[in-house]
């Protein structure tokens, strides 16, 4: 029985559609499970109190603050570094072997396993620079992890600024750097912003790099300096789900929900900003 090509197409398209649904469904499912089981635990105390009773009660405030510190520290280093690298690649680099090497290096940094970053952070920041297990070491490790994301999105943002802008500026006698600073960068800023948000959301969720470089099981007070350790949400979730006995499941799901909620919020903001840029583009 020969199936008409049109029928084959219909079948194929339905299967493909099913596949797409199959991919999206887990996102919805995971969110639903987390909300259903975690929401009961979330209240103002949960978000603002310190953990008590061996972390079986109380809140997760230090973990939230810790993640916040790490993220700010990481983006504080990665953003300038990444944007400057992107500026170099887009505005100054010539198409030679060196540039190719840089691009390969970026791709590689993006692909290095997170636990290898942990080892690297341990070797370089904790031991060699003697920062010890600290927010400084953790942030720097996370910053290098974030770098490829920032560079790639900044590159795209810079490249999307039309050449005519640059050419007009240069024709008016403005120097190259000033053109970049006052003409190109402001126009590329939204795209760079999107990239930063995505980078932040990635760093906030990582566990392996902070295992050896900063994560503390329990801190009674918030960190006082960047040479202190800190708690962090992903590590706290790991601890609650595997190290602490007899934890109420709601607490675990609640922590997971806060983490995922934070990450999703950042991503949605980035997506919206990006859509906004695309629609507002005047060129």
């Amino acid at each position: 029985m020969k199936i008409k090509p049109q029928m084959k197409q219909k079948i194929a398209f339905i299967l493909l559609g099913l596949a797409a649904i199959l991919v999206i469904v887990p996102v919805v499912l995971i969110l639903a499970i987390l909300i259903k089981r975690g929401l009961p635990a979330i209240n103002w105390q949960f978000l603002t109190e310190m953990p008590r009773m061996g972390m079986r009660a109380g809140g997760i405030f230090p973990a939230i603050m810790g993640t916040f510190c790490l993220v700010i520290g990481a983006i504080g280093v990665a953003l300038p570094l990444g944007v400057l690298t992107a500026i170099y690649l887009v505005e100054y680099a010539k198409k030679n072997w060196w540039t190719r090497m840089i691009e390969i290096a970026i791709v590689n940094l993006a692909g290095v396993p997170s636990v290898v970053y942990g080892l690297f952070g341990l070797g370089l920041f904790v031991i060699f620079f003697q920062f010890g297990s600290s927010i400084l070491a953790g942030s720097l490790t996370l910053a290098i992890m974030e770098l490829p994301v920032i560079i790639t999105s900044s590159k795209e943002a810079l490249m999307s600024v039309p050449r005519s802008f640059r050419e007009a500026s240069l024709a008016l006698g403005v120097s190259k750097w000033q053109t970049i600073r006052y003409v190109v960068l402001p126009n590329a800023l939204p795209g760079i912003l999107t990239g930063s948000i995505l980078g932040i959301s990635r760093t906030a969720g990582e566990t392996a790099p902070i295992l050896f470089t900063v994560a503390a099981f329990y801190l009674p007070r918030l960190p006082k300096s960047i040479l202190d350790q800190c708690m962090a949400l992903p590590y706290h979730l790991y601890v609650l789900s595997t190290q602490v006995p007899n934890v109420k499941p709601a607490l675990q799901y609640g922590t997971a929900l806060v983490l995922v909620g934070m990450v999703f919020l950042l991503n949605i903001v980035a997506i919206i900003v990006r859509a906004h840029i695309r629609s507002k583009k005047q060129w």
Partner: protein
Amino acid sequence: MKTKHLLSGILVVAVLFCINSLVFAKESENSIQIKGSDTMVNLGQAWAEEFMIENPQTSIAVTGGGSGTGIAALINGTCDIAETSREMKPQELELAKKNGHNAREFKVAIDALAVVVHPSNPVKQLTFDQISGIFTGKITNWNEVGGNDQKILVLSRDRNSGTHVYFLEHILRKGNDKGPEQFAPEVLMLPSSQAIIDEVSQSQSAIGYLGLGYVSPAVKAVAISKAGGGPFVLPSLDTAMNKTYPVARPLLFYTGRDPQGTVKNFIGFVLSEKGQEIVRTMDFVPLGDKA
């Protein structure tokens, strides 16, 4: 350009925070860093919480990572107290000495290790030899030890755990810590005692070991005898304290020098009646009359 102002605002705050920390932060005299055993980390935290309520000036940070991490931190001088569920090895003591730290050992509690199986498992008692055989892979079927005809699912903690090391040296190797016995490759290495409870409670053929404090009604502890005919004893607070239960290990604090000041007070607290009461509430075994 409101975003620019917001961003610069955040940047300024962050920089100020860093400057403040680097310039003004000092290791305060009243802070203690405790690192080490994951088995003890909850106990350490409970002690810390109580001590800090009574002494609001102090600040105690507790980190896990395994007994090995604590010892490594002690050797490197990055913690005040290393809490461990095993003794420091001779080469570790050497390394510590080389770095100028004379390690002092304090027994602070006792941990009874329970060997647990699924509640429906007919096996109720095992000898050291049998347990060693099961975990080294010599015994593979439950019917070899009086149970059903089922392949044994063997669970263990992972190697970073002092519990793992203790079990290896004292049960598998029967006290000879340099013996040839090894956990069989088929043994699952789970990241935590909680994971072991979860697996054992869901699998009829599973066997695992963990601290008495983790045992819940979802699993069944097996009575153990050191020798073949000898009395089979179930683990409990009493049998661990009167030493009739053979699988009990000391939980230790190591300091890098003779304890002074806050550290001394803390250890005093831990060894006091109140501290030992906390040991009991955390489901470990207090030291009893004589430490």
